[in-house]
């Protein structure tokens, strides 16, 4: 480096004056840790949801009665298949089954002989031996469901209570693998007809119809056609869902960030005061430097690099701690704010995604506030006349 001795002096100074910076670094690290944890959690959930979304069908057609979703007749499927450009029209039957007040699982009915519009589901189906699966009333269960059933001594089958009051006995065929737990932890996959029985639908009734449209410039067109099929039809597109997720997590993260900015502002004020009331010792040091021939510019440079170093140090430390806290320890306490403990009890781990935009967001918020508040006090120290300070 060009002015090696300068950097040598800088690091020497920082190491020697450790105690002076400990307080600032501690608070900074804590602040960065808090912000990064929240942003890491929100971006990790967003990532998982987006991954789920990629596998989702492009369109979902629902039947609306009085503003509520009600079962759709399966003759609609034949009408939809006739529209040009539509692929993989799937009959879907699903709904929540409440085992008790607190625990429920999502039952998904699948027509195993049809092609699947949900890509994740298609993958699951590939790993199942269909012949033995369809020979009896069988179901595939997620890890969370399996644990629940086991803890209630249902090791090989379960008796579902249907809305009409009958019992329906279904065998547990296999557990789904644990990967991406948000998606598959509390689901039960069973044949379509069986799901209809368990959920209390009639034979020609479906929850909704899913379909894909490979050419995405046709989306708006197809949407209009689907909506004109029936007065009570509602069409949900993948883009709508993506936007809804985006807004949901922006809301939670954004609210936090707004409150956080107030904390940052307070911290800046503290920093400003701390640097304005620089100790006479600090002034003396600067005066000595000036007296031995340093220019104001050099002193400013020294002081700034010192602060930039502090910011970067706190940033690296804080965000790595947050990484450990969120992705390795699973963010105890903070997790519930985002997930709402009761709804997604089974949620186990966050997928570690480090989005650089998140990191740069954290850095910008912090660096701007930190450096902005020390700017003027540092200058005031730097321009002190050596004569006055000594």
């Amino acid at each position, binding site marked *: 480096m060009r002015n090696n001795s300068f950097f040598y002096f800088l690091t020497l100074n920082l190491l020697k004056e450790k105690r002076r910076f400990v307080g600032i670094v501690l608070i900074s690290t804590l602040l960065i840790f808090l912000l990064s944890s929240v*942003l890491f959690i929100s971006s990790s959930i967003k990532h998982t949801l987006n991954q789920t979304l990629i596998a989702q069908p492009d369109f979902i057609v629902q039947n609306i009665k009085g503003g509520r979703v009600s079962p759709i007749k399966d003759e609609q499927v034949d009408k939809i298949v006739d529209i040009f450009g539509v692929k993989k029209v799937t009959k879907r039957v699903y709904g929540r089954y409440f085992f008790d007040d607190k625990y429920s699982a999502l039952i998904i009915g699948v027509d195993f002989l049809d092609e699947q519009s949900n890509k994740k589901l298609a993958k699951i189906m590939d790993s199942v031996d269909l012949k033995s699966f369809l020979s009896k009333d069988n179901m595939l269960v997620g890890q969370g469901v399996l644990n629940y059933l086991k803890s209630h001594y249902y090791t090989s089958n379960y008796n579902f209570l249907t809305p009409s009051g009958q019992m329906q006995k279904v065998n547990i065929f296999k557990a789904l693998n644990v990967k991406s737990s948000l998606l598959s932890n509390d689901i039960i996959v069973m044949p379509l007809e069986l799901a209809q029985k368990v959920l209390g639908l009639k034979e020609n009734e479906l929850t909704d119809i899913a379909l894909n449209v490979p050419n995405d410039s046709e989306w708006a067109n197809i949407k209009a056609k689907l909506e004109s099929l029936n007065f009570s039809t509602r069409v949900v597109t993948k883009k709508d869902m*993506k*936007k809804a997720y*985006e*807004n949901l997590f*922006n*809301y939670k*993260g*954004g*609210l936090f*960030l*707004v409150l956080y*900015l107030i904390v940052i502002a307070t911290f800046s004020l503290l920093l400003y005061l701390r640097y304005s009331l620089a100790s006479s010792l600090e002034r003396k040091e600067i005066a000595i430097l000036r007296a031995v021939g340093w220019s*104001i*510019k050099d002193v*400013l440079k020294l002081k*700034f690099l010192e602060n930039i170093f502090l910011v970067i140090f706190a940033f690296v430390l804080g965000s790595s701690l947050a990484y450990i806290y969120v992705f390795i320890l699973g963010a105890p306490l903070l997790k519930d704010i985002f997930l709402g403990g009761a709804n997604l009890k089974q949620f186990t781990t966050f997928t570690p995604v480090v989005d650089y*935009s*998140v990191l*740069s*967001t954290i850095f*910008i*918020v912090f660096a*701007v*506030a930190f*450096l*902005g508040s020390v*700017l*003027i006090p540092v*200058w005031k120290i*730097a*321009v002190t006349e050596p004569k006055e300070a000594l």
Partner: protein
Amino acid sequence: MNELFLNNYVIVYLFSEAVLFLIALYAFFKDISILRFWDFNNFSSKQLKLEKQSYLLSTIATFIFTLKLTLLIYFVYMIDSLSIIIPGAMCGAGVISANSYGMSLLFVKLITIFTFLLFLTLNNLDLKAKNYPLLKFKSWVLLAGLLLIFLETYLDIAYLFNIDLSVPVSCCSALFGNLEGANPLPFGLDIKMLLILYYTLFVSIILSLLLDNKLLTAVTLILFAVISYYAVVYFFGTYIYELPTHKCPFCMMQKEYYYIGYFVWGTLFSALFFGLIWVIIGLLKYESKVLKRITVTSLVLFVSLCSAYVLYYYFKNGVFL
């Protein structure tokens, strides 16, 4: 309340702009007092104070410049990420044209960065000399830069508050691509003429830099910037996207194209800005080999990057688009 203001990027962006605004406001008053009372031959304590203040101003300017540059990149990224929320938008192009303030905001941002870059160069020259020869001039430049920041803050607010999320915006192919046969290029050029101009101007900039001709450099650089904009959007861009109908200056900054857009536009503006600064300080009778070198390097990088995309496509597929 608009959903936009809960987006992390928007909050952070507005916060940083607000902090910079406050600092700029402080610097503004200091700068005015320097412009009013500066007199190098005076030995009063006031003059001494002003000299110290000029250090503060240059520190603030460095700070503002660094952050503005970072925030420009951040802004473009933010605009791009907003395209999910805003109906109809598929990339930054749609979002930025959501209302009439967007384009002017981007433009003001670029000029601000140029002004601060000019100030920093002048400041560097000024501090090297013993009697602050450029102080008045650089203070005027700084004043202009600070006023631009005020304008920018106003435009930030006007732009973000006036985005209506219920009204769909156009996507880039509607804005740039599909013009129903109308020629989007200026001066009635066609693509062939555009490319001839592009390469001719490139060579003439290099030549005029070698010949140290200030006026010619300035004229060719500005012309080249305009022509390059069109050439990238309507010709080179299609090779980046590998699609003859995709004409957009923003999409190339997306992940799908490895964020190459930041580099393409970055080198172009770096060549333009450093070239013009070289011209301006040349007119003040200063020479800078470094600036010239940066200009040439960025220019060559820009042109070779654009051309490389075309050549790469040709070697891969055996045809031009």
